[in-house]
């Protein structure tokens, strides 16, 4: 049995929303007690309709939000028991984030954006340089290093974000709709990159998506509906077959 990287037990998350006149405050139950585990080297997709809690779930896995109930266990450690700076250390060293909106800092060059997690980890300049060169070459963005993020196309931005996510050699990459803002060609480049991360670098990838085609690249899919996992599909045969399987399931949703 493989090592569990991230595990959730009875994960609950609620939001409070107000009406237009703010007279009444409603509580929205986004996640309703999710038990889930990601094993080392898996490529897991999280699917579901809009508003089913996919992004919230990913944020909780990445320790970017505090759950209302339940626990997130990272490599056997209950994250509720960890200090804030320990969580920061985990985010910096063991998790890479790829967001739909890229979240690159316009004030910095592409190179500095990629380096940022290493800079925050007090890495040696030579090591940073070497790692940046290595990654940008792998993802074909060597020529963009001295540009500003706002000068890049969407696909380029996302590849920069992937490089930034990988720079500290994390165990897990959490991707939230990584192709959501991209055209199909750029999207393909990004998904190829994520597959490469998983297959060649052996990283665990957890990706939120609502795109069945994109999801077919994953090895396991969990289907969320109204804050609950309603199904788990594992890829056993060809990608094409898996795609149709996912398509059938999403139609049922």
């Amino acid at each position, binding site marked *: 049995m493989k090592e569990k990287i991230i595990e959730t037990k009875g994960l609950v998350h609620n939001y409070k929303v107000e009406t237009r006149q*703010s007279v009444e405050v409603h509580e929205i139950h986004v996640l309703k007690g999710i038990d889930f585990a990601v094993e080392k080297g898996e490529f897991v997709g999280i699917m579901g309709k809009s508003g089913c809690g996919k992004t919230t779930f990913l944020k909780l896995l990445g320790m*970017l939000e505090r759950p209302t109930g339940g626990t997130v266990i990272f490599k056997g450690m209950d994250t509720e028991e960890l*200090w804030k700076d320990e969580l920061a250390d985990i985010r910096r060293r063991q998790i890479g*984030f790829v967001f739909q909106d890229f979240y690159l800092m316009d*004030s910095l060059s592409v190179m500095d954006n990629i380096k940022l997690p290493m800079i925050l980890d*007090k890495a040696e300049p030579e090591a940073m340089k070497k790692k940046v060169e290595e990654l940008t070459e792998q993802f074909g963005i060597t020529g963009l290093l001295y540009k500003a993020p706002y000068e890049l196309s969407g696909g380029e931005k996302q590849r920069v974000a992937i490089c930034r996510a990988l720079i500290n050699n994390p165990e897990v990459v959490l991707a939230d709709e990584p192709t959501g803002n991209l055209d199909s060609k750029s999207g393909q480049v990004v998904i190829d990159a994520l597959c490469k991360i998983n297959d060649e670098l052996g990283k665990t990838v957890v990706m939120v998506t609502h795109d069945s085609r994109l999801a077919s690249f994953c090895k396991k899919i969990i289907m969320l509906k109204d804050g609950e996992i309603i199904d788990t599909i594992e890829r056993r045969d060809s990608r094409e077959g898996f795609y149709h399987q996912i398509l059938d399931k999403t139609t049922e949703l």
Partner: protein
Amino acid sequence: MKKQREKIEGKHISAIACVLAVAVTFLLPWAYLGPEKYTLYGFFRAIYAAGGIAAYAPDGGNIYASYVVTYLALAGVLLVAVHEVLLFFNIRSRILNTAMYGCTFIYFTGYTIFGGYDAGPALFAFVAIMGLEFLVVLYLEQSKEINENYRLMKKREREEKAERRRRLHFPGRYPREFYSVIWDNFKYKWKNYILFILSGVFSATFLTVAIGMNYILRKVHSIEDIVLGTGMQQILIRAVGLIMFLTIFLTAFVFSYYIKSRMSDYRMFTVLGIRSRTLSVIMMVEYAGSLLISFIAGIAAGTGILLYMRHLLVNKLGTGVIVSSIGPAIYLFALIGYVIVLMIATAINYESYLRVRDSFASVKDVAREKIPGRFLIPASLLGLEFIRSSISSYADTSIWTVFYFAFGLYLAITYGKALLMKWTDKSDRYFYRHLLEKIPFYYRFKKNCRYLVMLTTIHLLALGLFLIQFCGNLIAKPAEELIPYDFVLTMHEGDEDTVAGIEQKYDARADLYPMIRVTTPTGNSFDFMATLIMFAPPGQNIGISEATYRKLYEARGLPEPSPLGLEEDEIHIVFQQDSSYKVRPIDASAGAGIENPYLKLGQPQGGGEYAQWRVKDYECKILTGMLQRGSQENLVVFSDDYFNSAYAKTEEGIRNLCLLNVPEEHYADVDRELQTLREKHIVDESYDYDIRVYYGSRQTVRDIVSERYTNEVVYAFVILMLAACACFLTYIKFSFEAGDICRRYGFYDCMGMHEREQMKTIRKEMWPFAVAPVLISTVTAAIYTALVFRLRTYESSQIMNYIKTGGTMAAVYLIIQAAWMAWLVYQMERKIKKSRINVGRQEV
């Protein structure tokens, strides 16, 4: 084991205490029975030897009672014995303990009451020993437990700390790239820093100038009464208070925008796993650095303004008055003030600071602010009531009235606006029709309401408070006209010779009028704050007859007044003041008011009772001179009959009012001569150091001139500052929001909204933030001004004068505000146009 040891220790102590108590009780000869002294044992023995109590004391009485209670002592002794035995076996019975103490205590008390002897010392010694025993045992049993818990807790804490240190160990130094990233990020947002720094510069400049003016003018005035609310220092102190208040809110407002602008960067660092201490240091360096730069720049700007103001004052007031130099104390106090302002502004935004460092709080930043949904009608009505009562209780130049108003405005705007939105939003047609221009309120309701309240308050302070003060000074009569006589004396019986001598020697002219000192229980020159901290001295005014009143009119060359027609219980008051002050009641006692003061004929130190009088009428006229800015030394006119009879009864104290004019070259000589009178009647000045035996025109004129000029300079500065503050506030708001607004209009553009429609919408969105505060404050200021006309009893010519001066200045102020807003709207339109999709045929 340890616990067991403590228990045993406690029992040993207890046993020792018991032994001591028993020894004290039984072995010492405390009992005095007649001439004999006995121990307890000795007492029983003596009774036994005598053949019983009846034989020992055949007369009975208290000895019987003493004998009975002695059995209690015996019971106590037995209990002590049992207690000791139990203690020996490590058993401690609390009930037994209590019973033992009880028996012995009652025995002693009983003996003291009934016995014919003094057991006091024994009683105290016993109680003390028992009390001590109780406390020692308690301490041993409980404090050790507490100490042990504390020790364990500390140990746990130390271990946790060590564990935390081990887990969070993060060795090494940040690479050079780290600092370059921070610097690049800083440079990229330099405009926000500039605005942030500029707000600090504003605060530091205002504080330096206000505190500096206080400092350099502290020696200008001869009659200075800070506590009583008169004089220049009081004006300046109020200005400092106001400036502190404004700078706090301005700084807090800018902080809130600044933090928001930095939030995304800090959040990104947090997501990427920056250490919290590192982030705190970055924030602290940015924050403290900006504020330090602000302070230095503010000090420099403030010093420049101060030097210019000092130059103006020295030129205007001449060398006769002392305008102090700018000293280090100014900077020290400015620094203290600045730190206070920053601390409060930071505290107001504390939650936002915390949120910056919290990676879990991303939702809170983008979430729209809550619009109040409950208590809308009562809170709005309460706000309106505050506004109404602030207007109806408007006391000339009161800063509290404005703050009171501001609080009412806050409630009325916040809850009233929410109520209005609730009502209007019921109609979907209305809601969707006005949605775009109302988005700021739907999204940032509280911030926008606070902005409206603050801007309205600033306008109101400028137009409804300081402009009134400023114009009152401008239209006031020249100081020389307010002091028509060279000297005004209040004379006692026998002073006539001195005055006659002066007349003869210096070719002077003295007019003597009969007067009686009229005292009120409470002088009117104090304000509310003064009553909180000190005793207010009695008011002192000049009582004259109607005939004298007419003569004074004549002497001033004024047209003859109409007959006053005063009854015996009626008075007429002549307030001697200029148009920069309101008419204040001569008696500030509760229930007096302007119409019914309590008066006593005679000086404060004399006898007599206060009685309430009816003021038939009053007027503002200078007959003897504006001696106390209209707060004291006013003329109280009685009917001739009443005055004559009262005057006849007055044999001691002030009897005459002397108005003395002397040739200019002899002014100083006469002043010197009058000093003898002052020394003679120095007791007249003892009750209130504002009151003088005589008033010289030169000093009084100089005081008035210097005070007025200072007023003008200070008020002009404050009005300018308020105008700048209002402009800056608006600029800050729209500068920080520009990015969001442009994005939103870019979206409208994408959705196909015409450019003209966009421009119309942005105007509709921005202008209310300028128009509403101006409208509310102008209307309120107009009401305040009308009230001031009444309070200061302005004549129509004065009102016209005021309207010309004040109206022009208010118009200039409003035009500046409107022009500024128009420029901001224009700039925003340009920015929106720039961010539009650049396709299609361009409009020419």
